């Protein structure tokens, strides 16, 4: 694993999933083969002007079905106006083990915050 927690392979277990699988559901009688349906991460925008926020994940045979499944799973209580789906293994995730070097080093560096300026009188919205 590379030192700064940006591993070549995502930390997610989604790497085990065969993305080249045919775009079809397994034949009904076959034993359940989860490998045929990839993992997708779902991002939902709750209203205009807001960002898409990660809502969860789901399995789907392809992007078109992933969007539809996301609609059924994550917007059935009027939660969204827009959905993104991303193959889980397309997401490069930071390494949870490198929390110290990755996220704790900015702590105590208060000079990075705008705390040494004095506010001018009468200036609003600062």
């Amino acid at each position, binding site marked *: 694993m590379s030192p700064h927690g940006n591993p070549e392979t995502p930390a997610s277990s989604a790497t085990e999933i065969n993305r080249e699988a*045919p*775009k*079809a*559901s*397994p*034949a*009904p*009688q076959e034993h359940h083969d989860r490998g045929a*349906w990839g993992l997708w991460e779902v991002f*939902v*925008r*709750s*209203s*205009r*002007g*807001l960002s*898409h*926020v*990660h*809502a969860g994940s*789901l*399995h*789907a*045979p392809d992007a*078109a*079905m992933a969007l*539809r*499944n996301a*609609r*059924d*799973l994550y917007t*059935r*209580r*009027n*939660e*969204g106006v827009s959905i993104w789906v991303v193959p889980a293994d397309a997401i490069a995730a930071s390494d949870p083990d490198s929390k110290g070097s990755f996220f704790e080093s900015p702590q105590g560096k208060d000079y990075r915050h705008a705390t040494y300026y004095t506010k001018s009188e009468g200036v609003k919205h600062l």
Partner: protein
Amino acid sequence: MSTPETSTHESTGHGDISTGMAGGDSNASATRITPGNALRPEDIALEVKTGLVKPSGDVAEYALRLGDDALILEQRLGHWISRAPELEEDIALGNIALDQLGHARSFLTYAGAGMPKEDGTATSEDELAYFRREHEFRSVQLFEQPNGDFAATIARQFVVSYYQYELYRRLTESTDSTLAAIAAKAVKEVDYHRDHSSQWVLRLAGGTEESRKRMIHGLRLMWPYVNELFQDDDLTQRLAEAGAAVAPSSLRGDFDRLVTAVLSEAELEVPDVPAAPGGGRYGKHSEHLGYILAEMQVLAREHPGASW
């Protein structure tokens, strides 16, 4: 005419179940839940109770037909819950079933308003759903056909959703404002059902040899019941002339065109099978409806008036 979006029912809407910020608040979370504003069966029941709406006998009978279609299909689709091939599909079919249940409740509530009991009050949706016998149901036979395997269910859903879409799309123009309002809400939902079923027709047909075989078989099972959907009779003719309803035969052209387009994209053919005799609109049903009703009605009949 009230449209669902701007209906007069906002005052009765259950805005209190909202657990998040209303409107475009910047603090709103991605999982904000709002009920939204749309026509609900309860709104129709209130209009019925206050005497705001009262369908004619013909309109009530027509609403009963459409309500029974949706109710029986909902009962069929509900059976897939916990049994679908994948969890995601389980929820998709459950959502479609719930949409159909909503349509059934609206249509039956409205139908009941035109079918007063001896004491003069309207027959309720529950009384219509739970306390009628097989020959009193007015659904066409396609809706009661068994789920079969997933492909057979998709085949049934494919036919139903294209039929219902064409029907509700036209029914939004009905001179009967309640029918028009129910249709205006339903047509958006059925549009999604169309998308869901056609996506699956394409995938099953273009999937494995086995899935294609099953898709073809499913379509062959359901196709004998297609004809009945588009049969006119005296009731639909009278209502169509008055502008309240849609003549079923007038939907056939668009249905055939759109369904054939999907089937040819899936490299499938319209099954060449003889039509079933039909008769569901007059209470003649296939052998399957009785079993559905037995399961659907047993609890309500065993414990009349119980609530849970």
